[in-house]
């Protein structure tokens, strides 16, 4: 294999991670040897990170704050919290471990902020103890020139509930990865995602849920809408190990093409080694219902308003996972504001 010529972003990343430990050392080594992933890598075929990070040439800084205070790299949460990842221009890396103790109930409001031309690689490790409940609400409203790549690994113990609702408006490349290890035994995982992409933006929801124990429940619902030259990517995988009998798992991705020139790429996968399970996946693409649009305009709504209402009603469903009404209204409001600008 030939020696690769590193891009400025790769060089900055290699320098930044010099002497790093844990996953960062491995990540550095991967970049040294192969560069950032390109579309030739199966898992990145619709999200060419090497290409998207061109133009980012310097090192940057990411500030990680928890309830407005600088966050340690390991934290135990037993009450509601607000987590902010705030990246400056350039390449930056964030790492955070979160422990939710057995029986705790936590709502984590997570906000991603990016400067123009910021390229953030973040890794979150979340562990839910037995019977714990974590509701994680992620909003990503970032500049088009930024590139956030946020990978979260979640381990869910018996009887615990993990609910995640993510809203993103995309960017040059936005990747939200969630990898869940699901113990079953009464544990529940609910993954909700919404992407609304104006022209030229990209968003990628990639996830795996691995059921390792029996009797687990997983519901995943991702809905998206994409304008001209925008690209929505959904890669979802459920893996059910042999011990995970009576797993009940359902995956749904539905997208609305707001323009013929939008691109939606979806790869739902089931990998099942247990024989007594209920697993299903569904994937559907559609366009705005022109008859409904005319009906609404005939009643007096402007075309923009009618389109916004139709798109909102299509997209809002996964946000129903947010149980706190104030937070749900806030996130739905972000969606609505965005729609008024692009509908």
């Amino acid at each position, binding site marked *: 294999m030939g020696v690769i010529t590193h891009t400025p972003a790769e060089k900055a990343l290699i320098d930044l991670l010099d002497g790093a430990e844990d996953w960062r050392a491995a990540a550095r080594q991967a970049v040294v040897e192969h560069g950032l992933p390109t579309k030739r890598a199966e898992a990145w075929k619709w999200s060419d990170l090497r290409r998207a990070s061109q133009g980012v040439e310097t090192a940057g800084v990411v500030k990680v704050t928890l309830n407005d205070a600088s966050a340690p790299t390991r934290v135990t949460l037993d009450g509601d919290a607000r987590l902010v990842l705030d990246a400056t221009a350039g390449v930056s890396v964030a790492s955070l471990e979160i422990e939710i103790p057995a029986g705790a109930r936590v709502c984590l409001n997570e906000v991603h902020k990016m400067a123009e031309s910021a390229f953030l690689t973040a890794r979150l490790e979340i562990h839910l103890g037995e019977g714990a409940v974590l509701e994680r609400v992620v909003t990503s409203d970032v500049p088009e020139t930024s590139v956030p790549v946020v990978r979260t690994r979640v381990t869910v113990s018996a009887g615990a509930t993990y609910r995640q609702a993510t809203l993103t408006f995309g960017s040059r490349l936005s990747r939200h990865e969630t990898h869940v290890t699901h113990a079953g035994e009464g544990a529940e995982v609910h993954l909700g995602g919404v992407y609304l992409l104006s022209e030229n933006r990209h968003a990628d929801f990639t996830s795996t849920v691995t059921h390792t124990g029996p009797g687990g429940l997983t519901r995943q619902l991702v809905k998206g809408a994409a304008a001209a030259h925008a690209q929505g990517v959904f890669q979802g995988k459920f893996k059910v190990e042999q011990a995970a009998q009576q797993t009940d798992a359902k995956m749904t991705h539905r997208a609305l093409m707001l323009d013929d020139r939008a691109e939606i790429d979806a790869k739902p996968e089931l990998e099942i080694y247990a024989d007594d399970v209920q697993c299903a996946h569904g994937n559907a693409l559609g366009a705005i*219902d*022109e*008859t*409904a649009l*005319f*009906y*609404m*305009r*005939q*009643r*007096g*709504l*402007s*075309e923009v*308003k009618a389109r916004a*209402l*139709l798109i*909102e*009603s*299509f997209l*809002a*469903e996964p946000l129903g996972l947010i149980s706190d009404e104030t937070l749900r209204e806030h996130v739905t409001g972000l969606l609505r504001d965005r729609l008024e600008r692009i509908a």
Partner: protein
Amino acid sequence: MLKINNLHCQVETQDGEEKPILKGLSLEVPAGEVHAIMGPNGSGKSTLSYVLTGRDGYEVTDGKMDFLGEDIAELEPEERAAKGLYLSFQYPVEIPGVPTLTFLKEALNAQRASRGEAEMTAPEFLKFAREQAKALGVSMDMLKRPVNVGFSGGEKKRMEILQALILQPKFLILDETDSGLDIDALKTVAEGVNTLRSPERGMLVITHYQRLLDHIKPDVVHVMAAGRILKSGGPELAHELEAEGYDKYLGEVT
């Protein structure tokens, strides 16, 4: 009030071809009158309702349609709605996720804003909507549900009339409002329509059958076939059509 003169309209078919549907239709409905249009399937009745309200794909190629003295052919559907044109759809559309009350409040206030009128506040609107719903025997529970979702054919038609009662248009086009209704639902809907009759309001009732006209008594009945009005007369014309059918009119044009 509504004045249509020598209207020609073509519709884009699914193959992308332009097909002429209306071929020189003329019609005038003064304020305060109810006119019925009767005609066989394929005569262009629904096309007339869509071209009047400005649906995409329905192109006027000749003639004129004036509403309240203004040519409306170039106006957007929502501009025509704000001027007071209302279409009760033959097949009311389901809109999942949008509660009926929210939809109607947005629609009413959009129309009012477009006319330069003050918007109605939420409590004012709720009170007004409740009164109108009660008159038509529609529960508030139904109004909280998404627009037309899960409603029976009869309920949808009743909601169309309720929407008209709330939006208070100047002119109503009722497109096959009787289809899918049993006799009790037909009576309720007709009562709703009759309460909307007023000296300032005009109506065009499009129907295939005469039975609706027993409950909504028209001032004038027009017979339409092959994209034109072939005969106009009083209510007795509807009974004549019921007895004799459309054959003799179809004979005239083919």
